[in-house]
Structure formats: structure tokens, C-alpha cells
């Protein structure tokens, strides 16, 4: 297993809590960190989607990963979970190098991707059970956990219907069940609340909250600022592939808005990525 390298000098932001502020002994204390990236780069042709990203998420955190469209959030998550090869850099999940020891890393993580690619010709129950086998969950536990997940996620009545006949919210709930059936140490969620109704949203929020209470680290990307504000213990903001800020909400508020204690996450976000309203006036509408 490889160890975390020293930080590099490419970090352009000055976040409140920066990985490079950690001492060498701290970064080598791998159990303390759930997700660590160092010098992560991904290009698509001439476009740099992710630019030397250094990120550290502590174990047990509910980490919100924010950024405007095309900022590099999903690209980063795909590199973190081993689905997109970085051009440079490394990713560790619970101390395991994702690209050197992918099977071990996958066993430690659960993933709810932005675009759900479920086995739609299996029923919800079959798919969750299948995932249990894939993660190597003991056979005796699979059935119990599956039924439990179906109950909690309000899928029990439709458990034997094929997933192809499910609604969008039900798709998300099945995908979440699959992502957590093996009790992952780290859960990656890419836009989990996109396109789902408030009822399903509430159910998922509750489950996520419970998971963090039990020590699961959650890495969470979303556009919905209210949800991030309510759930996340720490937030990272990425813009044009560069991590421009990182810290608790309070720390970001102090950095972005000074003494304005009432600033919402949306205000902070817009302030940090430098969006000014006057730039968006359409004078011809008047």
C-alpha cells in the first residue's frame, strides 16, 4: 500500500483548512482520513477538468463538494471511485490507493453515481441481494439486510417489480440500498437529490444522517445548497477544476463574507466563485 505523498505547490486556493497545512505525521495517520487526493489531474483534450486537486476528508465527516456546472465535481468523484483514470495524481480511500489496489478500495466504499446504471431487468430485491453477494456480505446477512433496506426505503411493496418499472425516486433509493448494503466506510454520493420528490428526499436525508452517526464518511456532491447547508459538516468548493475553498460552513462564511453571520451557503458559494449579479443583467428585457 502506498503512503500519502507530500503536498505539492499547485493548490491555488487558500482554504481555511488545507491538506498541505497538515504535518507529515498527520497525513501518514491514514485511519484518520477517509478520502485523500494528491495532485489529481484530468484533462479532456485541451480542457483541464480537474487541476492538481489536493483534498482531505476526515473519517466520519459529511463532506459537501460544491461547484458550478462543469467545475469538475463528477470527474473528481469518478476518479475517486476508480471509474475514470487520472492523468496525474493519487487517490486514497481509507488509506487504500484506489488505483493501485482497486478491489480493496471498492470493498471499502459505496457509490451512488449521478447517472444510475442499474440492472433494470432485476427486481429491487434481486438487485440489492445481488449487490450483497458482489460485496461479499455473508449470505446469512444479505437477506436480512435486503429486507431491512427495502422496508426503511419504503420499497417493500414494490420489491418484486422489475427496476425498469420503478420511478426516478425509487431508482435512487435502490441505488442507495446497493451502495450501503456492505456498510461502507466511505460513501460517495453524486447529486443524490437530483430529480426526486420531497418524500424520497426526506427518507434519503434521514438515512444519510444515520450513517454519519454510525461513523460512515460521506462525500457528497450537490447543487442544492439548502441540503448541503443542513447536512454537511465540512464543505469544499471547486471551480474550473481547482479547489478554491475548503472548511466548515462557519469558516467559509468568515472567509467569504467577513462579519456577515447571516450569509447563506449560496451567498458564500457565489462570493467564492466570483459571480456578480450585475454581470447578468439583460438590459433588453426592460
Amino acid at each position, binding site marked *: 500500500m502506498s503512503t500519502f505523498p507530500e503536498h505539492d505547490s499547485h493548490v491555488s486556493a487558500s482554504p481555511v483548512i488545507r491538506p498541505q497545512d497538515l504535518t507529515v505525521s498527520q497525513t501518514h495517520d491514514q485511519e484518520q482520513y477517509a478520502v485523500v487526493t494528491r495532485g489529481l489531474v484530468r484533462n479532456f483534450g485541451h480542457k483541464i477538468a480537474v487541476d492538481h486537486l489536493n483534498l482531505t476528508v476526515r473519517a466520519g465527516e459529511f463532506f459537501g463538494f460544491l461547484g458550478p456546472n462543469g467545475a469538475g465535481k463528477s470527474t473528481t468523484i469518478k476518479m475517486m*471511485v*476508480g*471509474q*475514470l*483514470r487520472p492523468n496525474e495524481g493519487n487517490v486514497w480511500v481509507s488509506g487504500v490507493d484506489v488505483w493501485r489496489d*482497486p*478491489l*480493496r*478500495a*471498492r*470493498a471499502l466504499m459505496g*457509490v451512488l*453515481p449521478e*447517472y444510475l*446504471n*442499474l*440492472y*433494470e*431487468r*432485476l*427486481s429491487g*430485491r*434481486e438487485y440489492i*441481494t*445481488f*449487490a*450483497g*453477494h*458482489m*460485496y*461479499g456480505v455473508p*449470505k446469512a446477512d*444479505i*437477506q*436480512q439486510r435486503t*429486507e431491512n433496506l*427495502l*422496508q426503511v426505503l419504503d420499497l*417493500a*411493496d*414494490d*420489491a418484486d417489480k*422489475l427496476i*425498469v*418499472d420503478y*420511478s*426516478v425516486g425509487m431508482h435512487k433509493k435502490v441505488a442507495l440500498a*446497493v451502495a450501503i448494503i456492505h456498510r461502507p466506510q466511505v460513501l460517495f454520493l453524486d447529486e443524490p437529490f437530483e430529480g426526486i420528490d420531497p418524500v424520497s428526499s426526506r427518507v434519503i436525508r434521514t438515512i444519510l444522517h444515520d450513517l454519519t452517526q454510525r461513523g460512515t464518511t460521506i462525500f457528497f456532491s450537490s447543487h442544492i445548497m439548502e441540503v448541503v447547508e443542513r447536512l454537511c459538516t465540512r464543505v469544499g468548493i471547486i471551480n474550473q477544476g481547482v479547489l478554491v475553498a475548503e472548511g466548515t460552513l462557519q469558516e467559509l462564511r468568515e472567509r467569504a463574507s467577513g462579519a456577515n453571520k447571516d450569509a447563506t451557503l449560496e451567498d458564500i458559494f457565489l462570493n467564492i466563485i466570483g459571480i456578480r449579479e450585475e454581470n447578468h443583467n439583460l438590459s433588453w428585457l426592460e
Partner: protein
Amino acid sequence: MLIHGNKLRSLLWLRYKLFTRSLARGRAGSIAGGIFLALFILIFGGGFALFTFSMYRSTPAPANAEILFLVLTGIYLLWIMLPLLQINTNEGLDLSKLTLFPLTHGEIMLSLIFSTLLDTMTLALVLLLGAVVFGWGTSIPLALLALLAMIVFYIQLVGMSQLVLVLLQSVLQRRRLRDFSVILTVLLASMGYLCQFAIRGFGSTGFSDSLRHGTFSHYLQWLPPGMAAQSIQQATRGNWGASFVWLGVLTVISIVILYLWQVFVQRRLATADEGGSMAKRVRHHHTVSAVAAQERQAPFAGISILPQQVSAVMVKDLKYLWRDPQTKGLLLRSLLPIVFLTVYPMLQNSKGSLFHNPAFDKFYASTIISLSLFSLAYNALANEQQSLATLFLFPLEPKHLLWGKNLTLFLLGMIEVLVVSTVIAAFTQTWNLLVPMLTLGLSAIAIMLAIGNITSIFFPQRPRMAARGLRTTANTSPEQGCLLAVTSLVALVVMLIVLLPAILGVILPFIYGMEAIWAITIPASLLYSATIYVVVTMLVAPRMLDRAPEILAVVSRE
């Protein structure tokens, strides 16, 4: 009916862009495939158009007129059926994307009709309709009337096919029917074989008698295509008044169809989203008791002697073979060659010219079986389609994934080999050849799976998805067609070369009448193919982890 020229131009520009980009998509392979498809349609459609043209001109009356009635009716029926079978999916006909804009009904209808002109399939249609105009246009007035009749016929054809599609949409949206049509499409794509029956039927004396006596037109004239044909026929006889009456009726029907089409399309679009995303479900507020849950059989209990992940993958694949129409279609299509190449000739020649003397005829059936499953084996990972991204999220040993998938196909292949070999042995009373035939079949399957594992990991190809409905995503495109064909052909040749020692081990003793050697060569052939499978799989499996992002990129590329 208000029509703005600039809006119509924009709509046609949109259709043109969609058409050209569906062909190009920036890759040489797909451009070559597009040209190949266009050439194929040009040659096939052009050939048929020339044939019908010569029939209109050379066949004595009234048989030539009867042919016109039959050709137009055939085109009409085919064009109604094609959209139902997911062929001719045309993004230009996707009204759900156009209803956002302030377009009048006339603009929408005209743009839809014109947009069909840029379909590759339309090329064949235009050639056939052109043959009618040139075949019957023996003078300028006749040619003009035939042209007019064909334009009206074409407009009605487009409108009618889309109207039928829209009317059946709610039925077609039911998953089971949708699945069935996918399977039917896949099967029809490989049913050129059936053409021979049609050709035999056309060659029969009963058919030519019907042509001579004008039997078909008597009935077909009351259908829209018959009206178009009747209009031309009346003009040919100099009955211009009757000709225009038939043409007028055809035009009125066309207008009614176009009107109904856009009315039903708009009505359908207004209700499409209500049922699409969330069907109304009656909630039964019952709780599943723990006991009931425990009693419920685990769907992936699997086969206990296999590793947990292997049996789970295998059971999943077996379920998919049954439930997924794409996979089921592939499987059924793979069975067709077996029927055509073994069972059908055997029944045709029950006295046995086929299975009597040459050793090749004795054994080729069991080898053919393995080839039939090749379409499922050589692109096994990509055939998972988008779900592969999920599969690669699991901590699944690559060899376990390959074993699970290979075992599924091995199981199917073994059943097929067993059935076909037993049937052949029973029909030809050559039970002594049963074991050699089984040996050859199983060896071929093992080597096919080995080669399939290499191609699946190193040369994955994005499988083409069938799609249909009001919301289409792309035009029919020949994407990757050439590359796919070349890769599979090379893999097939390599497979046959690698299989050669096993084939020789079984066939040579038979040819030279030294069947006693089979005691050595049969186990040797089985051992050889099993070794090839194990060595190849163990060598290539670890590369799957390295290549996972690249495989995913191929499968999920848009």
C-alpha cells in the same frame, strides 16, 4: 394554415444537422459505416426499383397494373410496420422537442414530412416511387400525374405510419409489448432466409394467374395505395376525370390523416409525462414480517460449490437472458443458424444426403453451435451496457466475473450441443458419433469463451440499443458497424485456428477409419481446449482491472 418560411428553414436546418452528425459523430469508422449503409440501400433499393420498372414496362396488361397495386400496398404496409419495429427512428419526428416553440400546426406537419426525406431508409422509398413515375409516365401528362400521385402517396405514407405509431403508443409503451417488439426486430434482422419462401410464392402459377386476371386490384383499389395506383391506371386508359377523382379522394384522406396525426401527437404529448415517470400505484400498507422474509427464497442463493460472486453473476446473467429483450434477441438470433443449418436441412433430407458421407457434415453442426453463441461471448463485458459501470464499482475479482459470465454461456452451449448432437445421432442412426460430436462442441465452446474473454477486455464494442417512441434519441446510424464486423471476423478466424487441433483430433480418426484412437484423441482434445481456456482467462483477467476505465469509456460513450 400559417407557415413561416424562416421557421421552416430552421427546422430543415435542424434536421439536416441531426442527420449529418448521426452519420459522422467524428469517427472514421462510423462515416465508413454510413457510406456502406447508403450504398447497400442504394444497390438494394435501386435494384428493386429497376426490377419493378422493367415489370411495369414489359409485363402485359393487366398484370403490370396488378404489380403496381401490389408494390404500393407492400410499401404502405412496410412503412407502417417499420416504426413499430423501431426501425426508422427519426429525431426529426420527435415532436416533444418541438412543442416548446411557437410553431403552427402547418409548420410542424411540413417539417415532419420534409424531415423524413433525410432518412437513409427514405432513399430506397424514393427510388421505388421514382420507378413508378418513370415506369408509367409514357407521356408528359401521364408522368406529371404519376409524379403528383406519388407525392400525395408519399405524404400520406409518412402521415399514416406516424399516426399508427402514435395511436399504438400507449399499447407499445407497455413493457412486455415493447420487449416483444425488440426481440421481433432482432429476429427479423436475420430473417433474410424467409425471403426464399416469398420468392417461391411469387414464382407459383397461382400467383401469375391472379396477376393476369386482375384479382388483386379488385380489392386493393379501396385502400389508399390502391387509390394512387388506380389514379395512374385510369389516366393510362385516358379516363382523366376518373383519375383525378381517385387522386382527389387520396388527397382528402391524406389531409385527414395528417390532421389526425398532429392532433393525436399533441394529445399524446400532453399526457405522456403523467404515466411515464410514475405509474399510479395502489399502496398496500402491509409490513413484510421477518418470518415471511426469511421464508422467501433468496434470488441469488446460487450454486454452493461455486464462489459466491461467480454464482451471483451467473444467476444474474441467466435472469437477464430471459428478461432483457436485447439479450434475449441476441440469444434467439444465435439459435437461428442452428435451426437453418442443422435441423431444417435434416428434415428436408430425412433420407439423408446431408448427414451421410462426408465427415464434415457429421461434425459441423456441433461446431456451428459454438459459433452461434459467439455474438454473446466476444463482447461479453460491453453487452452489460450501462450497467457495467455499476458492476465495476463492486470489489469483484475479474476472474470471478469472467467465470460467472462464461459459465452461463457454457451452460447454454452445452444444452444446445447435447440437443443437436442427440437429434443428429438419432436421425442418422449414428450413436457411435455422439461422444465425438459432443467433444467437438464442448471444445469449440471452451475456445470460443477464451477468445471472447480476450476480445471483451481488449476490444470492447458499444452495443447498439434499440429505441422507439415519441421521444427518439438519434437517427438510425451505422455506428461502429464496420469495426464491429472486422473485429468479430478476426476473432472468429483466430478461434477456428486455435480450435483446429481439437477438430483434427476428432475428425481425422473418423476419416481414416481409426475410431479406436478416439480413446486418446477425445480426452486430448478436451484437455487441450480446457487448457487454452484456463490459461487465456488467467492471463487476461487481471488486465480487466487496469482497463476498466477504458472499457467503461467505450461502453458509455455517446
